[in-house]
């Protein structure tokens, strides 16, 4: 034990104290000596008061503190206070669904999120992946700077970062998954062949999670250099997600074996034939299941209610992206062409499945226009129309979403169309989308409507900013708003608190 301290003595009690412990600092020696003759408890309490005063009055600064490297200054300004208040409310849970609009509007206005709110935004991005690219952009240079503070913010390092020098040279060897993927994305842009070689060499030692992340990256940006490892390694993976990403990448690479054999199968399955006076797309169902199909993800056993041949055919069609059918069939507009009436359902379902692969919007729209005129009740396995539309339209940019919905709107029932709008929240421009505009106008006024309040709020988010005042004016003339109409109006008003502060700039 060291020399007894004042605290040590106090813990045991002065009843067991022989004498006052020595002062903790030489400066206290003189007053200490005056305590000697006093009753021990009082002496200790007075010594404690002295020690406290000396300690607090004699505090010294810490000097050897490493401060973080300053973050590069942002060239863009921070969003104005009105817009900032709205963002704070969104992050507190009010109007949470307007986050996407706030972020895109801020990006278009070329302003940044305020530093004070950035940690909350980064947390949001950690929980909800789809916001990451937007959040990374409005974070400016602070995003990557802050990302190093927490492992869960690591995505912000990768997402906003195209700065060539900002990676550690050994990111691939020592980085987190996010850092390695960011490094790989850059390497693939710089030298795809070298990057593919790196992947091939390390594949065997990668964890299933990082294999999945690598395959997902390559699926969105396939490169011919990747064919070798995709075909030999990724296609043979146990994890379905990895195989699926590999197939998505390979089908986009005409040089690959997978592409060649898949297109070949499709070509023998479907062809354009003359039937009577018309040319019709016909289907030659396969006689037996080819064991080689297994490796390409074709399942042999059909779900109950579906015939084997229909099941195999549907999958073989589904493996080929919509964009390739025109070439395979040798016709311009395959999705408005007459179909073999015996296999109509199979061909359509196959194409609907194929629409999950990246496709051109006009092909998606053509297929949807075909679908909405179809009498789905006749199908043996009818798909859920709004789910299918939602799934096909959702990946597209907002303007295309509203264009497609505008085109198919007359064929949809009103509640279905409103539900789709509420779900997708594409920007509806009054002039370009008169049918959707009318749908919204009537939808929010309809006193009989069964619109839920969240849906009403979502619909209010579809209205283009310049049309908001008109909508609000119209609503203010209605004396008794329904609860959903009130929600509709409140959401419009909320959008009006930030949109005027975030006007797009092109410089």
């Amino acid at each position: 034990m060291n020399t007894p301290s004042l605290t040590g003595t106090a813990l045991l009690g002065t009843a067991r104290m022989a004498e006052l412990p020595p002062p903790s600092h030489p400066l206290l020696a003189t007053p200490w000596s005056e305590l000697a003759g006093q009753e021990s408890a009082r002496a200790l309490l007075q010594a404690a008061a002295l020690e406290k005063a000396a300690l607090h009055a004699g505090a010294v600064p810490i000097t050897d503190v490493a401060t973080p490297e300053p973050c590069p200054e942002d060239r863009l300004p921070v969003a104005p206070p009105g817009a900032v208040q709205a963002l704070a409310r969104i992050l507190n849970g009010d109007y949470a669904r307007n986050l996407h609009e706030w972020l895109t509007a801020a990006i278009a206005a070329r302003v940044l999120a305020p530093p004070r709110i950035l940690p909350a935004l980064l947390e949001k991005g950690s929980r909800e992946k789809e916001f990451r690219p937007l959040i990374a952009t409005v974070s400016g240079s602070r995003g990557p700077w802050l990302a190093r503070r927490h492992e869960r913010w690591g995505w912000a390092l990768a997402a906003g970062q195209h700065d060539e020098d900002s990676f550690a040279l050994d990111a691939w060897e020592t980085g987190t998954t996010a850092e390695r993927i960011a490094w790989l994305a850059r390497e693939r842009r710089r030298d795809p062949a070298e990057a593919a070689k790196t992947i091939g060499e390390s594949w065997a030692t990668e964890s299933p999670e990082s294999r999945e992340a690598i395959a997902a990256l390559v699926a969105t940006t396939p490169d011919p250099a990747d064919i070798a490892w995709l075909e030999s390694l990724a296609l043979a993976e146990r994890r379905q997600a990895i195989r699926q990403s590999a197939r998505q990448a390979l089908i986009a690479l005409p040089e690959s074996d997978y592409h060649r054999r898949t297109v070949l199968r499709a070509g023998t399955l479907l062809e354009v034939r003359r039937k009577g006076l018309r040319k019709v797309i016909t289907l030659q169902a396969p006689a037996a299941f080819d064991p080689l199909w297994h490796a390409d993800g074709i399942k042999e056993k059909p779900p109950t209610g579906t015939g084997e041949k229909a099941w195999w055919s549907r999958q073989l069609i589904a493996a080929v992206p919509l964009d390739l059918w025109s070439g395979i069939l040798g016709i311009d507009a395959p999705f408005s062409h007459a179909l073999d009436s015996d296999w109509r359902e199979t061909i359509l379902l196959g194409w609907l499945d194929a629409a999950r692969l990246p496709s051109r919007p006009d092909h998606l729209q053509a297929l949807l226009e075909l679908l909405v005129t179809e009498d789905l009740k006749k199908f043996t396995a009818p798909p859920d129309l709004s789910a299918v539309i939602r799934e096909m339209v959702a990946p597209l940019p907002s303007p295309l979403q509203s264009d497609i919905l505008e085109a198919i709107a007359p064929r949809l029932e009103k509640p279905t169309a409103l539900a789709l709008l509420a779900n997708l929240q594409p920007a509806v421009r009054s002039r370009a989308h008169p049918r959707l505009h009318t749908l919204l106008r009537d939808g929010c006024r309809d006193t009989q409507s069964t619109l839920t309040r969240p849906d009403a709020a979502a619909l209010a988010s579809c209205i283009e900013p310049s049309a908001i005042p008109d909508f609000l004016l119209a609503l203010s003339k209605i004396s008794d708003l329904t609860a959903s109409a009130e929600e509709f109006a409140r959401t419009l008003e909320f959008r009006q608190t930030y949109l005027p502060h975030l006007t797009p700039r092109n410089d």
Partner: protein
Amino acid sequence: MLTPDQVTALAPDASSFKAGRDLAVARKWQTLGKDSRALWGLALGSGKNPYQTCVSLDDIAFKCSCPSRKFPCKHALGLLFLGAENASALTEERPPDWVTEWLDARTKREQKVSEMEAAPKKAKDEDAARKRREKRGDRIDGGIDQLEQFLTDTIRGGIGQSEVAAPGHWEALARRLVDAQAPGLAGMVRNLSFLPHSEPGWETQLLHELGSLHLLIAAYRKRESLDPDLRAEVAQRVGWPVEKEEVLARKGIADRWFVATRQITESDRLLTSASWLFALDSGHWALVLNFAALPARPVEPWPLGSVVETELIPYPGVAPDRALPRTDSAPARLPESLPEAPDSIRTLLRRTADTLGRNPWRSRHPFYLAAQPARHAGRPVLVDTTGEALPWKPGTGEEDMLASICAGRAIPLAGEWNGRHLSVLAASNSGSWFSLQAPPP
């Protein structure tokens, strides 16, 4: 005009804040207007007639004809948010009669109050007052005897005894001191019950606080031999009230005061709003307290971050922190740019040492400092521009938030140093001065 941050800070509670936000749209109002003195509007409510809402801009006073007991009510908050964010919606330019009548009546009332204050007070019944004081003095003396006995017993048995860490141990004593009309001592004792197991080294801290308390009662017993300032200091700390008139009779400090921090705490349904004001010319600090019993809220004439030219009168005592404004009606204005932060870690420590040298009981030392967060030996610190640092105790989320605002550079921060760690109470972000206690942003 207030900033949205300042309006947020005025909201009496979360539900008023939310309701006020929802009212910050023109659709909820029949008319809206503003001029240099006031904002006004007719709020559409559930009743037949709209509510008349008005905010006086000179002193941020509110009036609304709605029945709400919240202060300010949601209508006044909505009006302020509108004024802060969307002033163009306030289209009327000429105040209606009900607005001018209220504003004029307020001015008259203020004049009356100042006349009344100027008028000589009725002589109190000196005799009865003296008797009451004597009686109180006897009770306090009794309380102090009990307290000393308790302290010395505790020290004799040792602070390692298990009952010392039990919350009831100190609470029972605090109640007896309240009965003995020594609320100051009661408060100090009550604070002791939060120390056990609060952080590493709490034993030393507890011992030091016991020492401080003992020093105070020893000084109180010798009060007749102390100089008047120290006697006043000791009496106040024990719990003798200071009459407002007594403070107002003293000399004040006229300066341009920057409202640097504001902290609202609740204890037994009593809200205390504590604001540190910094004198831009003389460098003085003053703590201004306002109280209110829930559900009312302390009325603050000067928003956080504003500068007010007025006279603050320090309470009697040694190196006193608390001060009383001579008048509440001095207008506050928002400075165009933030006043320069004068402190460094070194000047703060220097000032702390000077203060403690004269008054060992002072525990809160305000600062206004350019600094940034960092870590030292794994613990949060604040580093000033000279590279010197002190330990910092950040609240939830504060470390990330300040790091994000600073981004590796020092920014102006205000708060308190208690001898062990710094607390940040207000900071600047993009030129706006905000309270870390207010609901986020």
